[in-house]
């Protein structure tokens, strides 16, 4: 396997796998609480962080993490306390973040729009050793939260009011989801880019739930799909000269279409299985005609 021998491909593959695991792991809770586009919003806000990183000559990854965590917490607070038109406030945050990023990058000496585009659309082949280290640390945190607290996060995302009455620290858990989502965005930023991050959070989950009936299976399946498409996309981009981020997202959508096509026959099979185990109707409806009645007339 010559692909594994080059150092930049090793780094790219590590980053790809970590993104494939973490993005759907957080995304499932966002989809569950019907905030599928939250990742998109954070991605836009993270732009300002990248711009700030260039302007201050510090690491864009850590700056993006910092700014997107602040942005995600703000979004969560607007959602929780905002009484009037939360969507307008969120829109301001999205566009402000994007515009801020473009402006700051142009103000800096080192940054250019070409640099910016590697964050917008991802650039796996330029992932450095220090990037890999930060991605590993951040991904470990994301996995710890999303798997370790899955029961609690499930309850909070399923029915927030009920979760509050069980005495769970709902506000803290909501903020934790927001922070984890923000961190995931910056983990995935190098692989698929800020504009396509949300796709990896949402599409594998959407694909998995076409054929699953339980949350646990959806979770595992979404992570498997996420990892498969990020790996396949990275390998494809190595052999064919195509951008990895876009390839990964298109593969994920392909998986969604394939599983949707598979869902209908699968549901029919389940129905047939249920039919053989369930008893037929035996209730006699008075007054209804049977074949025997017809014969006596």
């Amino acid at each position, binding site marked *: 396997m010559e692909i594994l021998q080059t150092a930049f491909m090793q780094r790219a593959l590590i980053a790809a796998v970590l993104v494939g695991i973490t993005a759907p792991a957080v995304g*499932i809770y966002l*989809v*569950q*609480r*019907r905030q*599928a586009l939250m990742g998109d919003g954070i991605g836009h806000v993270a732009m300002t962080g990248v711009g700030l990183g260039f302007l201050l000559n510090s690491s864009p990854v850590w700056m993006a993490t910092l700014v997107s965590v602040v942005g995600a917490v703000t979004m969560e607070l607007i959602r929780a306390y905002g009484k009037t038109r939360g969507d307008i406030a969120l829109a301001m945050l999205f566009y402000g973040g994007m515009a801020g990023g473009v402006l700051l990058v142009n103000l800096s000496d080192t940054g250019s729009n070409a640099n910016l585009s590697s964050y917008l659309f991802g650039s796996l082949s330029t992932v450095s050793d220090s990037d890999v280290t930060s991605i590993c640390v951040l991904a470990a945190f994301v996995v710890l939260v999303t798997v370790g*607290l899955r*029961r*609690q996060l*499930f*309850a909070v*995302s*399923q*029915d927030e*009011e*009920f*979760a*509050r*009455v*069980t*005495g*769970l620290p709902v506000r803290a858990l909501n903020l934790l989801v927001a922070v984890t989502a923000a961190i995931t965005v910056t983990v995935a930023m190098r692989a698929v880019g800020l504009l396509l991050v949300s796709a990896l959070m949402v599409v594998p*989950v959407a694909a998995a*739930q076409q054929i*699953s*009936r*339980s*949350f*646990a299976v*959806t979770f595992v399946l979404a992570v498997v799909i996420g990892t498969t498409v990020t790996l396949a996309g990275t390998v494809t981009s190595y052999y064919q000269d195509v951008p990895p981020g876009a390839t990964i997202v298109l593969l994920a959508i392909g998986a969604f279409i394939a599983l949707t096509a598979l869902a209908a026959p699968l549901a029919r099979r389940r129905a047939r299985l249920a039919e053989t185990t369930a008893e037929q109707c035996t209730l006699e*409806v*008075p*007054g209804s005609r049977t074949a025997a009645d017809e014969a006596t007339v």
Partner: protein
Amino acid sequence: MDPVKEPVISLRGATATLGSRPVLRGIDLTVRRGEVVALLGANGSGKSTAVRSAIGQVPLTGGGIELFGTELKRFRDWARVGYVPQRTTAASGVPATVREVVASGRLSRTKLGLLSKADRAAVARAIELVGLADRAKDSVNALSGGQHQRVLIARALASEPELLIMDEPMAGVDLASQEILAATLREQVAGGATVLLVLHELGPLEPLIDRAVVLRDGCVTHDGPPPKATGQHALPGHDHVHPHSAAEPIRTGLLT
């Protein structure tokens, strides 16, 4: 005479507003251990707000609330309370099985810890109580409206609570499910549970109810034995649905 049992819920002079509109205008409500109290009233009378304020979901602007003799602000023992919110569905954006949804009701006991064998058994018991044992592994998306309500009630029962608070558990529920819910509730009451429930009409639960509290415009207008088809219930357009007795033949209209 029976010694007076200790109050489990007590609202004293509770006032609350939604926006700028006063919804509760000084409500006194006491539910004692073992009682089954129905909160009745028209839409907008404040009955939902009253129960939601009792569990801290609606902040009061005046008055006080105690649960099990503890000021609500200091109350932490949520495993003693089973809450059934007003919902038409138990589903969310991602598929989940009946067992997964019901298990989330056990979190008031396990908190941030893991599910033990005893916890799993309690979840299975709660599912069995509402007659959904054979559907435990099915997605809640595949259930009927009445079955959704049964899932929500099983979720509240999973923590084995002493107090059940239910907000319109019978809304949109077919008769078969209403009977099952009534039977489930009867078992809980027989086991010593205290129940406060918001109802639109008494229906099949009528024989279980010790006391009815009727609200109108955020004030208590009746507190005593359940009203017999007077007031709210005698109003035109207030439909009562009763099960047909088994002996009654099904009329098709073709022969008459």
